[in-house]
């Protein structure tokens, strides 16, 4: 093993050790209520080693909780793609549609999930569809915007090929516009998934539905602070894995 690759392998662990040391130090000095890494570990072990146990609605293994959250995110995410992709194509293809809706989109885009959720509860009356609605609404913007940019930026050379061949509207879309914009669309999909996962915690906290975010909020209310940290780490780990998976998928499409 060369020096460079040895350093690449060892340094992340040194970084992790430094963060754990800082965490221990802070928990023993300034923040007395913050559980130390050791305490977090001993109180969370069961949730990790028996990830699918179920003692009650809100006391379940972390794997089971993560599964609930992932299913909820998947629903919201797929809804976001189903709505966001066609809107993105319309924005990119039609100047009129762009003029009509781009200002509204720019206005809606920065609104926080916390603001949408109560509205979702009012509209749907139930927490589950309200959470899915919030995830979809917050996660769809990168898909909308990247798709629109990809479609409107298609090289004139490619479009001219279609014009010379007098391709029908459908063929123009399937043979030229969709494949040409696919790399952009996928970048949008990856960013949207990141956002969907980001929103899950807020959505579950406010609706109190079982999942990693709901568990986090409940354990805060029951003063089991170590489980907050367990939830935070779980959320981070799953977010990281999701992003890497989408990155791999995206790279496949880009090279295609």
């Amino acid at each position, binding site marked *: 093993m060369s020096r460079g690759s040895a350093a690449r392998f060892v340094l992340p662990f040194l970084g992790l050790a430094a963060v754990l040391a800082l965490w221990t130090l802070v928990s023993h000095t300034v923040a007395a209520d913050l559980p130390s890494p050791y305490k977090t570990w001993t109180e969370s072990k069961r949730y990790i080693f028996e990830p699918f146990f179920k003692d009650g609605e809100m006391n379940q293994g972390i794997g089971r909780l993560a599964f609930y959250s992932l299913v909820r995110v998947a629903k919201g995410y797929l809804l976001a793609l189903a709505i966001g992709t066609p809107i993105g194509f319309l924005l990119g293809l039609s100047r009129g549609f762009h003029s009509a809706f781009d200002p509204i989109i720019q206005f809606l885009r920065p609104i926080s999930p916390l603001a949408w959720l109560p509205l979702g509860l009012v509209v749907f009356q139930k927490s589950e569809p309200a959470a899915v609605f919030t995830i979809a609404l917050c996660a769809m913007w990168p898909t909308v915007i990247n798709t629109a940019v990809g479609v409107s930026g298609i090289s004139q*050379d490619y479009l*001219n090929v279609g014009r*010379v*061949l007098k391709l029908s509207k459908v063929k123009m879309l399937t*043979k030229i516009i969709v*494949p040409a914009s696919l790399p952009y669309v996928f970048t949008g999909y990856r960013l949207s998934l990141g956002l969907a996962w980001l929103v899950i915690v807020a959505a579950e906290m406010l609706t109190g539905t079982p999942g990693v975010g709901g568990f986090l909020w409940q354990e805060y209310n029951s003063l089991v602070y170590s489980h907050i940290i367990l939830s935070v780490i779980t959320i981070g780990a799953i977010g990281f894995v999701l992003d890497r998976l989408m990155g791999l998928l995206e790279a496949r499409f880009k090279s*295609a």
Partner: protein
Amino acid sequence: MAFLEVRGVEKSFTTQAGTTHVLGGIDLALEEADFVAVVGYSGSGKTTLVSLIGGLLSPDAGGIVLDGAPVSGPGPDRSMVFQQYSLLPWLDVYDNVALAVDAVNPGASVAERRRLTEEFIALVNLTPARWKRPRELSGGMRQRVAVARGLAMRPKLLLMDEPFSALDALTRASLQDELLRIWGERRSTVILVTNDVDEAILLADRIYPMTPGPGAVLGPVIEVGLERPRHRRHLSLTPAYQKARLGIVEFLRACRRGETERVS
């Protein structure tokens, strides 16, 4: 009336920097199976002329008539081969050509369309590479695909805009030879636009020099009195070749001199 008539075609472009008068009254006439070259300096408006005949642009004045029908937009009866290939990178060689075959033969059976696609790929000697994507091909091979696609439309007119300019000298020569062979077999009607005088003489029957813009026009036609089939070797030593070359170069030089005099 000629097979292709270009009459008094003018074109200007307006940008923030102002209006540029690119073409100032182009007249051009071709008969069927003519191979005509337009030679001029880079930036004189050759690409604009090709885009106008191709229908990608519309002229400000004048008109273009192909086979009795006025040109009012792009269509598969005028296929174009550009310097930058413009192949679809997400399709392999076969599908790039098949796209053209399918578009112009909507009534043909699947087997017939497959046969035509294979035929045009074979015509440019790319059968072994037919399942490759454009980025896996060399520049010369990509341009062969573009030529195959252009011919696969069975156009009334093949427009070539500096098709070999981006290639290295050796590849350029071999593609020129190949175009010469294909034209010998098929006798398509071709307009070749180029800045390479030797390429024009090797390939074309008639050559129109184009004055440098703005307001470019075509100079007096130069007939290339070389017999076909032509071969590259010894061609440049023949008196007919020398005469054509001298004619074009003299005209273009005179244009440029005139331009410098006007400026100074």
